[in-house]
């Protein structure tokens, strides 16, 4: 890939809404992405390999549990800092951001929020440094948008729980040291457990042949009579609100992250439109290209204001799940649309690995589906404003 010349758009001077520390955190993550991610990411995607050597750096820039209190190895930072880190990582690649989202919001968050003090002390410091990596098992082959229908189950065997079932589309699964797994108990109540690699009957086959998130490892979690110690149950939550709480945190990060991908597409398209000449002048001088660029920047700016406000609400513990759904849905769609517009501005070059556009576009096809599909988030907003449940069933 060509040298990373990214310059972030800030049309509404949104930087003025951030603290000096927010900007330092963001700029450090941005610099790290330029130095460590951009030079290798195209190759990693082409080869469909997760660049494992980035884990240490991800931990250092604060990508693992930035909002987890410092006493457990986290950063003790606010939600806007978390969002900004996700934005910068996804500016590099959605797959790298996914790895960080899973570690922070789907593994560290539930252990911190629903776990015992012993579980927090045992797992969080190692997850914060990347010494241990985690994954999150909710989705099943037959239960995606309807996780409450899951069939993975636990049976109380006195000294331990016996876990059976399978989870699918699990980011980080192939190399994760631990998995936060959601399963139904004998009463049909959803419970969370921490399953460790090495437990007998627990395997994590990798999913091959993806056209999206190729630099992130995805796999299955298969549980065949796995004996999980009782102390590995997350005691402080029961029911679907457990996993949904995690998803709220992750979706919030994705709303910021997707904007990073949108910004990268816009920035690349803007630069290309000034450099590429046709009919004797830069293509940026033609109205149809200006329309694309102007609309991209408008949507990005709206998205920036959306997540900044959402971050403020989240800092005050006032962000509702429906508000988070709106931001995730809007910003991921914005990013995917920007990628498609940017691809056209780049002409044929847009399909090559010389530019990040096609990689972002393909990645975003996953992002618009995982963590609540585009359609499901619409129904969440619909239910929130009408009071009517349109999910069916």
């Amino acid at each position: 890939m060509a040298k990373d010349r990214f310059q972030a758009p800030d049309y509404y001077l949104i930087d003025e809404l951030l603290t000096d520390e927010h900007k330092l955190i963001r700029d450090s993550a941005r610099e790290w992405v330029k130095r460590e991610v951009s030079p290798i990411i195209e190759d990693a995607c082409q080869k469909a390999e997760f660049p494992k050597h980035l884990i240490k750096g991800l931990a250092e820039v604060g990508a693992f549990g930035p909002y987890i209190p410092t006493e457990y190895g986290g950063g003790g930072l606010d939600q806007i800092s978390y969002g900004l880190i996700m934005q910068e990582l996804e500016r590099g690649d959605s797959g790298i951001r996914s790895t960080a989202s899973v570690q922070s919001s789907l593994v560290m968050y539930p252990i911190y929020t629903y776990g015992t003090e012993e579980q927090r002390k045992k797992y969080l410091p190692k997850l914060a440094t990347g010494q241990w990596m985690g994954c999150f098992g909710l989705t099943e082959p037959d239960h995606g948008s309807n996780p409450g229908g899951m069939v993975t189950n636990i049976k109380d065997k006195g000294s331990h729980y016996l876990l059976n079932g399978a989870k699918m589309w699990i980011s980080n699964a192939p190399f994760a040291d631990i998995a936060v797994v959601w399963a139904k108990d004998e009463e049909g109540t959803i419970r969370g457990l921490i399953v460790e690699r090495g437990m007998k009957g627990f395997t994590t086959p990798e999913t091959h042949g993806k056209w999206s998130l190729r630099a992130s490892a995805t796999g299955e979690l298969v549980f065949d009579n796995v004996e999980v110690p009782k102390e590995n149950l997350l005691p402080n939550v029961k029911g679907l609100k457990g996993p949904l709480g995690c998803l709220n945190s992750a979706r919030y990060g994705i709303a910021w992250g997707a904007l990073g991908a949108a910004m990268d597409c816009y920035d690349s398209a803007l630069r290309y439109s000034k450099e590429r000449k046709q009919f004797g002048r830069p293509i940026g001088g033609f109205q149809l290209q200006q329309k694309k660029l102007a609309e991209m920047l408008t949507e990005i700016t709206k998205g920036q204001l959306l997540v900044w406000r959402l971050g403020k609400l989240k800092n005050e513990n006032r962000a509702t799940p429906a508000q988070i759904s709106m931001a995730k849905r809007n910003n991921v769609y914005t990013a995917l649309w920007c990628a498609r517009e940017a691809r056209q501005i780049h002409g044929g070059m847009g399909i090559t690995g010389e530019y990040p556009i096609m990689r972002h576009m393909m990645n975003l096809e996953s992002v618009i589906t995982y963590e609540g599909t585009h359609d499901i988030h619409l129904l969440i907003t619909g239910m929130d404003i009408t009071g009517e449940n349109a999910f069916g069933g």
Partner: protein
Amino acid sequence: MKILVCISHVPDTTSKINFTDDKKSFVTQGIQYIINPSDEIALARALELTEKDGGTVTVINVGDNSTEATIRKALAIGATDAVRVNAAPRDAFFVAKQIAEYAGKNSFDMILCGRESIDYNGSQVPSMVAEMLSLPAVNSVKSLNVEGSTATLDREIEGGKEVVTCPLPCVVSATEGMAEPRIPNMRGIMSARTKPLTVIEPVTAENMQQIVSYDKPQPRTQVKLIDAANVAALVDALHNEAKVI
């Protein structure tokens, strides 16, 4: 070892530079500021030296309170503490005088600066500080090593390399190659919150320079290519179009 690193607060290299209509000042709205790149190299080398052999790194900046975010970044990168001389820098002599005043009272083993700041590109401060403190100054240094009380320095010179040694304390200005600038990590950013940043008032210094006006460089003009074999056309263009001969 006790090292003082001088840092300037300068516009990011990608910033669009504009001046006020009266050409008297620089428009700061929308400008992102950074640590001057060669100062960042100096800071990185200072940290390498103290991490290896022990010691402290103090950063000093002459500026009003708008520079504190830049100073915090230096602390986040790893400096032990920081000093801000509370004054808008007027010229190189003024800045050098403030640094020399502080350094003279706090006996450092080495004063490290960047080769030049990317805003005014004066390259004057390091030598002035050295002169004011009667210390040796070595400029544009690509490699710096310390053995006991002697520094060995590589300088890039026209067509080659010069290796010099000088006793500590000394003033060194850094250029590319001396060290890789560091990115602050989250632990560094968090610890920077509580590291000491002392604000001191400036000493009086004579005004040696005055900025009369600012102008942008002329925009680049179109290049006209003339066939190498067609000397007559070249002469004609230089004479009648460019009017230089």
